[in-house]
């Protein structure tokens, strides 16, 4: 059967803010990210969309330009413009999504369209992004037609028992570590995820682990999970990158093994994150698909399971004192925690030496700091000013062969040893987080 994928869900408007007004941009998001990806790899696709009426003209026109073979509206949004403002598009930490008027958001489904939407074309696969609308009727219609079903549960539903009532199995449930289930700690590791999914009438689970790659689990047989590395590099944005990944994977499974399809998805999603220029992205898709699948799967990257990250602790060397503006330290630590790393702040944990502290008290603090440093796999230093403690800790860590990354938010590092000793010196938090992923992966392999 020829692959024909129907993508189902809301169309949103993404507003990506930037420090530079010239780089602030606005484009159709939601399921249009998956549509762009399918267009990029030349897969026949259609969309069943839900959106406010004011967007209809733009959605239809744009989907047609992308080459959609069907554009069908199955529900309307009222009370909200369906606009998402993204304050931190690179996701080096929490993305700070602002969904405008979300509490007023209402969806009215067109039941007739839901029933008939899947009859017009013989779809091979359906990729659905639940969120704000009633699922059961849509899922039932898809199952009755025998369409292979992929569900991305990143936003909804939290309760997967809804899938149990289906008469057919779901091919793949797709979830990422950015989802509410992971962020709220309801799922903390792969074992908990699989236990959760086994209640859900599902054959496979795809766990996307952000900059740490992904794992693909087979629930119905004893095949080991597949680990796919992430192609990590400085990015422009992370909005819709996971949706792009889903779509490419679902489409390419018709032509390639799961491993190869996932590796192509990883490479193409990385390019999606690197640009908002669509012709550039489409050309990149063409080029990736010309590279043999074996070579794509050989290409290394970052593979770092979510639950393995806190095992290796990260020493935060910085003037983390109560009289210093520590916002850059706080931002770094928040970003590391967002990615499930274990940053350790010695001054916050052991206390701050006061001018009146006794020699014994100072010695105890020093020993505690040094014991902590010995227990850490990476040191991240934050240079807020020329703080002697921070600089000495960089030297000690280097001598102990603990890799050092220097976050220099104010670009003040000039000293030769300071600029040459660390693995990376950068004022860009995105690059610092990438370096931590790389170094922790290396520590994990030792």
């Amino acid at each position, binding site marked *: 059967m020829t692959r024909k994928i129907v993508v189902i869900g809301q169309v949103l408007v993404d507003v990506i803010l930037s420090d530079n007004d010239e780089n602030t941009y*606005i484009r159709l998001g939601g399921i249009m990210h998956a549509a762009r990806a399918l*267009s990029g790899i030349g897969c026949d696709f259609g969309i069943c969309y839900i959106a406010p009426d004011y967007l209809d003209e733009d959605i239809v026109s744009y989907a047609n330009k992308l080459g959609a073979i069907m554009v069908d509206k199955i529900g309307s949004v009222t009370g909200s413009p369906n606009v998402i403002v993204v304050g931190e598009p690179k996701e080096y930490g929490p993305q700070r999504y602002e969904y405008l008027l979300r509490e007023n958001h209402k969806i009215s489904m067109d039941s007739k369209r839901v029933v008939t939407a899947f009859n017009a074309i013989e779809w091979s696969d359906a990729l659905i992004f639940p969120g704000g609308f009633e699922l059961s009727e849509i899922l039932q219609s898809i199952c009755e037609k025998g369409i292979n079903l992929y569900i991305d549960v990143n936003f909804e539903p939290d309760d997967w028992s809804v899938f149990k009532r289906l008469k057919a199995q779901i091919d793949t449930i797709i979830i990422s570590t950015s989802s509410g289930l992971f962020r709220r700690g309801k799922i903390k590791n792969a074992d908990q995820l699989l236990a959760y999914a086994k209640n859900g009438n599902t054959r496979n689970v795809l766990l996307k682990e952000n900059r740490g790659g992904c794992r693909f689990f087979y629930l119905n047989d004893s095949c080991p999970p597949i680990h796919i590395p992430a192609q990590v590099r400085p990015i422009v944005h992370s909005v819709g990158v996971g949706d792009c990944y889903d779509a490419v994977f679902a489409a390419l499974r018709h032509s390639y093994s799961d491993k190869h399809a996932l590796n192509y998805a990883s490479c193409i999603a990385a390019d999606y994150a690197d640009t908002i220029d669509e012709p*550039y992205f489409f050309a990149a898709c*063409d080029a990736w698909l010309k590279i043999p699948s074996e070579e794509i799967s050989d290409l290394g990257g970052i593979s770092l399971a979510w639950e393995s990250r806190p095992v290796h602790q990260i020493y935060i060397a910085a003037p983390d004192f109560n009289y210093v503006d520590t916002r850059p330290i706080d931002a770094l630590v928040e970003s590391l925690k967002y990615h499930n790393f274990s940053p350790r702040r010695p001054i916050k944990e052991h206390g701050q030496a006061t001018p009146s502290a006794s020699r014994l008290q100072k010695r105890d603090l020093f020993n505690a700091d040094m014991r902590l440093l010995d227990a850490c796999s990476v040191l991240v230093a934050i240079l807020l000013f020329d703080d002697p403690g921070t600089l000495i800790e960089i030297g000690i860590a280097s001598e102990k062969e603990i890799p050092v990354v220097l976050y220099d938010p104010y670009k003040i590092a000039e000293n030769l040893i300071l600029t040459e000793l660390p693995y990376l010196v950068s004022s860009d938090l995105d690059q610092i987080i990438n370096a931590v992923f790389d170094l922790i992966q290396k520590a994990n392999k030792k």
Partner: protein
Amino acid sequence: MGTTGGGKFKHYDGNRGKSKGSGGKPGGKQGGGKKNECEKAIGDILLEEVANCQYFRSHKNLPPIGSSVNMRKILEGSRLAIETDSGEVLGYLPIQYNYLRRCMEQDYKYSGNVISASATPLPSVRIDLGPV
């Protein structure tokens, strides 16, 4: 009071239905104020695994500063490799440059120069690299 930011959708204005599989080099300028990554020169790349690569193992030394280097199109193991003019692998590119493999598929070729090389305490080489 003025307004800033996106006043309209920044969307693809072509027709994918007719132009799928265009291939070739992408345009020179991307949206978002960002240049085509394939056309960017990359400065000061610290090569990886230099001690374990063919050049150092054969010569127990490193090429002098200014020596020209090229990027291999074929992966060496799972890595993008940098070789000397004589074809000996000098080191690997960090994984953040894996996209250059895709650029090579778009007919870009990369070469550059050694800008620093030190055999001790650990063999290390830094290069500048760019499209030719």
